């Protein structure tokens, strides 16, 4: 019983981390109708920038305090992400207005390759460290109730808290501001949005910058867990079922999707996987998604797919 609880908690935490990445996908999709394949590459790029800046800054600027160095590095990395957003709008999206989703998806693949190459050229392809002082050791709760207690990971707990905050803020933004509404309009119809004066270029820079910010936060959290190196870009894959389960257009969906997938994965792996050879968590997540989609084709919280004559 204690162990089940532990598995569930572990799953919830893992799910929260997936959500963090899923959030980036949802943001961009919701605001421009682009499925941003480059989200993983952006996470890596941001994390690399952060890690290397934090490493360089003490030497370059003579900053002693680790906190200050980290803050400066964060600021620097954020600037880099804004620059990336700006360049993407200028060079890619701005020239692909009103094209179909699949074309835009393909363009983000181009961006992925570019960012992967560019990031590693700039920052190197070794393994780097982000140390923002996250606690690494486990803590044990309810030791009196269960034998051995229930293990909870403090690092994950912080990460989950940060993710929850981000989601809350972004949900508010989309639901309650005029800009949020404009973003949703852009996603529906680029041309009509233009025709009523929504400046696509500015909107896109903003959205991609926000996505860059989310990527940076995800990159820091994942990076401090895994170390910063190329594989970080692959965690994006883990976020795919989450985005789809929650619905491509729903910010809260990203969180709830993450939690469900996280728990589903871990519980299935630990309780079922063991007996059939293991390694089932990935496909289990996708099969779970598949069944949910059969009932709700737009995901749990996604906007209904409109199809009318």
């Amino acid at each position, binding site marked *: 019983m204690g162990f089940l609880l532990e598995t569930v908690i572990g799953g919830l935490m893992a799910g929260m981390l997936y959500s963090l990445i899923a959030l980036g996908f949802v943001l961009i999709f919701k605001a421009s109708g682009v499925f941003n394949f480059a989200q993983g590459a952006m996470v890596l790029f941001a994390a690399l920038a952060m890690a290397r800046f934090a490493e360089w800054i003490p030497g370059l600027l003579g900053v002693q305090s680790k906190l200050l160095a980290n803050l400066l590095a964060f600021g620097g990395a954020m600037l880099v992400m804004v620059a990336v957003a700006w360049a993407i709008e200028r060079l890619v999206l701005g020239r692909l207005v009103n094209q179909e989703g699949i074309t835009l998806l393909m363009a983000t693949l181009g961006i992925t390759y570019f960012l992967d190459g560019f990031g590693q050229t700039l920052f190197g392809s070794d*393994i780097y460290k982000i140390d923002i002082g996250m606690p690494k050791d486990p803590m044990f709760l309810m030791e009196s109730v269960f034998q051995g207690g229930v293990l909870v990971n403090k690092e994950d707990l912080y990460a989950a808290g940060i993710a929850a905050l981000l989601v809350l803020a972004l949900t508010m933004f989309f639901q309650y501001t005029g800009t949020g509404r404009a973003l949703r309009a852009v996603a529906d119809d680029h041309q009509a949005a233009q025709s009523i004066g929504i400046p696509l270029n500015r909107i896109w820079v903003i959205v991609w910058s926000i996505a860059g910010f989310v990527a940076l936060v995800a990159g820091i959290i994942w990076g401090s867990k895994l170390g910063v190196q190329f594989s970080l870009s692959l965690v994006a894959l883990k976020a795919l079922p989450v985005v789809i389960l929650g619905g491509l257009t729903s910010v809260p969906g990203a969180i709830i999707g993450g939690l469900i997938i996280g728990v589903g994965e871990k519980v299935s792996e630990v309780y079922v996987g063991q007996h059939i050879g293991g390694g089932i968590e990935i496909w289990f997540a996708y099969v779970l998604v598949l069944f949910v989609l059969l009932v709700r084709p737009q995901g749990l919280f996604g906007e209904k797919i409109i199809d009318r004559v």
Partner: protein
Amino acid sequence: QAKEQFFPLLVYRTGPYAPNGTPWANGKQDYIKLINARDGGINGVKIAFEECETGYATDKGVECYERLKGKTNTLFDPQSTGITFALTDKAPGDKIPLITLGYGLSASQDGNVFKWNFPLMGSYWTGADVLIQHLGKKEGGLDKLKGKKIALVYHDSPFGKEPIPLLQERSKMHGFDLQLIPVTAPGVEQKAAWLQVRQSRPDFVLLWGWGVMNSTALKEAQATGYPRDKMYGVWWAGAEPDVKDVGEGAKGYNALNLNTSGQSPKVIQDILKFVHGKGQGTGPKDEVGSVLYTRGLIIQMLGVEAVRRAQERFGKGKVMTSEQVRWGLENLALDQKKLDALGFAGVMRPLSTSCQDHMGSSWVRVHTWDGAKWSFSSDWYQADEQILKPMVKAAADKYAADKKLTRREASDCGS
């Protein structure tokens, strides 16, 4: 005819495995540079090389092989078990030998079936065997393993699965429980695996990982409170990149090692002098002498020595063909004296190959991470021939039957 001995270098300096692939590749390259700079080549034959980036991807590796096989007159080191599997079928046709030091197909030790494969110094079976021996020793005898629980956390690929048959064999012999926990490549998400570890609380965890999987495993072990000193990695899970950013958290973690690390050996000093000293170094200077770098040196050294051995038979100072190099690999005789002369004193143990045995020796030690550096914590082991031999033979026979190959005749050994 070519005037140089050409070494194609399949490497990966990008992608998920770059942090581990890079020092290895640098070691290989620096050794070639050393031979050219210090000795003027192999008995005067200069060495040429060309790198090809595989990204640890099999199809890319095959492309590299095809690209470079026309140029080479020496051998390939695929740097990946997956690529090795793919090349094992191609190499005999092209008559190019493969060195797979410490990786590849364990059965390919049997030179009578695998004429072109050379899993020098050890295979995953020998590695697994030694680990069990070591655990037995720690517990005070192999019979003490009875009833113990050993978990294998492995990279879910042919590489990670290789040790399983041997471990199963050993588990039958000693009566320990073997728990298999696969980790999907590249291994960034291991929470479920470590929850299972926490659930079953094995006495030991064997870690068969590569690249980011290793550091992630250590971090997850820390996060779930599994004692690191109960964890034993294969020799691909015991280098600096695996523990560097875990630091203190990996303290007590053990892994096999086929070679020493550190800058004291003579060959390393020579590299610092002849290669880095002249500004010719391939990677950063402080990486020279690290675990994987040194392993790269060894691999390259064995290749060079195979050429030298071949020259002894087919003509000193001549450029060898890859068939001749194969003979050289099959007749390596590196005794302590030779190793000392080469500057590898203490770095590795002697090794000599033969027509039947393409491995040469399986000497290996365990080293332990103390939070800042690796240091040896065991004596040298070799795999138990009694267990290994029949398994290799059976597997090689099955392979031969599948491929409709016949074992080499004794007469074939001379060529």
